[in-house]
């Protein structure tokens, strides 16, 4: 137990001193994950909203697929993106393998179905509530989708948060396509995995603490926003 105590103390010391290596890793992690979540929202929000708002042939099948893709194992996503980006793959000429861009792509593939499927559910419920009113006001097509997205904005914040949580914590996809290269593609989760196996527990634990801190902070911020939304009956 004293071992754990001293490791934790050293880890906190690393964080407090603003250790350069640590900051580089945290910075890259956040850049990769936030980019991936932003892209996932760009694709997943309108896609999910359209599926939630309209009836069309094959809709049920699409919902099943979206829901199933929510549970994609990160290593499988990593492998598939690896095959796409590797020299022999269709996107090989882009030479993206083992770059931060590759990690963004992998996390986007992982998170987009989550954003789309959760958005679909939220928007479908709201659409049911608004349907007659929208018909009466003549709100159709893209106008309906954007109005639903706007009125569901606080629920969708939670959706984006779920995507962020999934991306920031996963290790399987980014380690395969990023390769965990020092100063290039090393992010929090891959570093924790590597440093733990090397026995460098202080750095690993420092990153673990930061990861937890980020999760708690983001959750608290979103809950605070939602609470104020509930007070104005916007949620």
């Amino acid at each position, binding site marked *: 137990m004293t071992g754990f105590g001293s490791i934790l103390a050293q880890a906190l010391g690393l964080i407090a001193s603003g250790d350069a290596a640590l900051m580089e890793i945290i910075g890259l992690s956040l850049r990769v994950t936030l980019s991936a979540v932003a892209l996932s929202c760009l694709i997943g929000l309108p896609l999910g909203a359209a599926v939630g708002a309209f009836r069309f042939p094959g809709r049920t099948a699409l919902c099943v697929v979206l829901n199933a893709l929510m549970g994609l194992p990160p290593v499988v996503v990593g492998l598939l993106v690896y095959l796409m980006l590797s020299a022999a793959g269709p996107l090989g000429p882009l030479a993206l393998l083992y770059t931060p861009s590759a990690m963004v792509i992998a996390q986007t593939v992982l998170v987009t179905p989550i954003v789309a499927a959760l958005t679909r559910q939220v928007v479908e419920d709201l659409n049911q509530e608004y349907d*007659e*009113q929208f*018909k*009466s006001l003549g709100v159709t097509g893209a*106008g309906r989708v954007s*109005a639903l997205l706007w*009125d569901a904005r606080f629920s969708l914040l939670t959706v984006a948060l779920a995507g962020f949580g999934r991306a920031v914590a996963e290790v399987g996809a980014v380690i395969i396509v990023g390769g965990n290269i020092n100063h290039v593609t090393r992010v929090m989760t891959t570093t924790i995995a590597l440093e733990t196996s090397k026995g460098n527990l202080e750095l690993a634990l420092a990153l673990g603490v930061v990861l937890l801190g980020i999760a708690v902070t983001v959750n608290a911020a979103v809950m605070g926003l939602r609470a104020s939304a509930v007070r104005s009956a*916007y949620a």
Partner: protein
Amino acid sequence: MNIQSGAEAVARRTGLTARGLCYDAGGKRLIDGMDISIAAGRRTVVMGANGAGKSVLLRLLHGILSPASGEVLCEGRPLDCALRARQAMVFQRPVLLRRSVRGNLAFALAAKGVPRRDRGHAVADALEQARLTHLADRPARVLSGGEQQRLAVARALIGGPDLLLLDEPTASLDPGSTHAIEELIQNAYQRGVTIVMVTHDAGQARRIADDVVFLNSGRVVEAGPADQVLNAPQSNAARAWLGGRLYLDSTP
């Protein structure tokens, strides 16, 4: 299209005709062969017991439900999107958007294709008429029942409809709020808007109606000028209802 909401805006006189209207749901015939004509520029009040089919009828007249048989004609043409755009409806339970009072009004204008720069004036005007100016930036869903209903009526009127359908707009409102709603309706009528309103309140019917349509069990049992139907009802259902007796027989 007429996009002004101000008192200067004049509506195009528009009536409606329903012929042999039937509607089924849940294996039941809810509307059973109704023939109704809504005279242009007049105020028609629809009455009848709970479950008589008043709300379903209004949806059919508005074109958001399609009849099983029969048709609704507007100016001799079957109701389509363009014709429906000239109607507005206040539902029995209006849905306010998760936005400010102002946002709800602006949204209705946006849906009518009014450009952003032209919305401000119409919204300010509508707020003024509904006496909601001081609440303009409040979230719509935290307003009181009366204020929400005023907003719903103002939102229906802001696009400058030629025909306004209202489903029990003052049910469960106090006299002050009821008066404010009736004032909005009467002002719209003065501008030439055709009014179709459902009410349970005989006093309100007397104040507003030019014509009365009385429904029972999905059929029209009596229709005609207000003083005739309200003062000398011919059908058992209407006579019992207006006489304040409970009428439980379903045959007219």
